[in-house]
């Protein structure tokens, strides 16, 4: 009887392990698929011609995606400039000042913000942000500025929740010690709590960047998708993700492979960001 019970436990454990590993399998399959479709063109056209090429005309055998790589980083940085201060302020308020009631109200609304589909953000961007920029600042409105604003709002929840966790994991003794030394509450936060949570906060920024780099739908709708490297805040631009989504419908042959090559570059960027973020988190844990 007892033995049978243990068997059942083992079976459940085995089945769950199998399911857990399936996510790894999906990751592996995606990797193999993207690499097998994207790598042949790197071989054929040359890595430098693709990664550092300035001209994208895939139906005329020019596969340069350098402007898109730069543009992707530009909007990601822009999103961080818009989103990070807000998110950090929000996380600090939540962990240091907010009472129980405020927390009950704020946390779920942040989660709600994270749950809104990106196409809705894009739509709001096209309907409100783009016309406002066009009328008051000039240009077509489809620009780095509008894209950064939309993405900045989109990455708020990611950055807030992770830096909130980082702030909460700072031991209460640090705060008590600082207050006992006669520091005010703000001095305590500014001089003790934030520096102690520094690596976690940096990790949250980097994960937020990963989210911004990968965002597609909202970006297509507000970025204008021009191929040139933007030279002003009001210039349109095209990111790596929007390049794939824009052109996949009609692409055949080398054009299609070029889009997969764009995917390979994107994969490398996002993987490096995640690696760096994990490194920061680890550094924090081991400290």
């Amino acid at each position, binding site marked *: 009887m007892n033995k049978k019970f243990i068997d059942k436990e083992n079976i459940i454990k085995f089945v769950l392990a199998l399911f857990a590993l399936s996510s790894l399998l999906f990751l592996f399959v995606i990797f193999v698929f993207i690499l097998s479709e994207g790598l042949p063109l790197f071989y054929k056209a040359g890595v430098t011609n693709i990664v550092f090429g300035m001209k994208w005309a895939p139906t005329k055998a020019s596969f340069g995606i350098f*402007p898109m790589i730069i543009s992707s980083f530009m909007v990601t940085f822009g999103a961080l400039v818009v989103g990070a201060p807000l998110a950090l302020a929000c996380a600090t308020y939540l962990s240091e000042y907010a009472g129980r009631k405020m927390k009950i109200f704020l946390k779920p609304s942040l989660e709600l913000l994270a749950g809104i589909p990106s196409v809705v953000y894009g739509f709001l961007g*096209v309907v409100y942000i*783009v016309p406002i920029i066009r009328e008051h600042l000039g*240009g*077509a*409105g489809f620009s780095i500025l509008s894209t950064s604003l939309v993405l900045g709002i989109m990455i708020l929840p990611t950055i807030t929740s992770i830096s909130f966790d980082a702030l909460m994991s700072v031991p209460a003794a640090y705060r008590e010690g600082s207050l006992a030394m006669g520091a005010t509450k703000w001095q305590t936060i500014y001089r003790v709590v934030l520096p102690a949570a520094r690596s976690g906060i940096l990790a949250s920024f980097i994960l937020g960047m990963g989210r911004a780099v990968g965002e597609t739908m909202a970006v297509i709708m507000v970025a204008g998708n*021009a*191929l040139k490297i933007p030279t002003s805040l009001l210039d349109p631009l095209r990111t790596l993700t929007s390049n794939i989504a824009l052109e996949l*419908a009609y*692409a055949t042959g080398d054009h299609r492979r070029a889009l997969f090559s764009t995917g390979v570059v994107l994969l490398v960027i996002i993987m490096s960001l995640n690696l760096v973020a994990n490194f920061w988190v680890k550094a924090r844990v081991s400290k």
Partner: protein
Amino acid sequence: MGIRAISRRAACVLVVALLSCGVPSQDAPSGGNSTVTIAGSTSVMPFSEKLAEHFKIEQPRITVDVQAGGSSAGIQACINKTVDIGMSSRDLKGDELVLRAITICHDGIALIVHPRNPLKDISLEKIRDIYSGRIKNWKELGWKDRNIDCVTREEGSGTRGAFEELVMGKTEIHDSIMVQDSNGSVREVVATDPYAIGYISLGVVDSRVRALSVGGVAATRKNIQAKKYGIVRPFLYLTSGEPSASARLFIDFVLSKEGQRILKKEGLIPVNE
């Protein structure tokens, strides 16, 4: 012929079709069910689907399977005989000329601006200058001192392909020009931005945007039929040699009065009128 007469006829066809279920139809060439595969241009695809729906009522035993893929893919598939009919929204060239091309209708490409824009007419040359980045300001076209917000379609699109061929020629579309991925999104940008200019299929021009006349010729169905308006592309059905009997029936249906009426209702220019 009134709508009632048409619907009565359709009803008759439907009844006959229902009755003939089970017994081999006289019209179906091999006596049994058959499938016609069509693939190619995404510009032609929605219209082929519409035609296939209507065709299904007349010939319930023949299934028309419509797939996208782009003009070039459709042509290639047709050469390789993997499809019965290929769809193309551009003329054949070079090696592709081995295929038999049947023009099912024409589609005009209209240059559109916001209704508030005072510009009424533009020359082909000026269009080329705008899209190649030489003209950047509306002042040069006799309006305000304001940048032109120019919109094009994405690389690989059939509409862009036709625009490049018919308007741009050897000149390249400049990198700084905005890109949208459908007729609808280009129209949306132009409808909301008074300083924008774009090009879309004539069939999807609506009252929120205004089509410019090009070189003094208005972009209308009449002018296209009279061959006055030049930015026109053919929608082609391609077959490799003699089409199969079922494919032949479908092509005949598309070229029939009924088929052409459907295309005209969708905003395209029928071939035999």
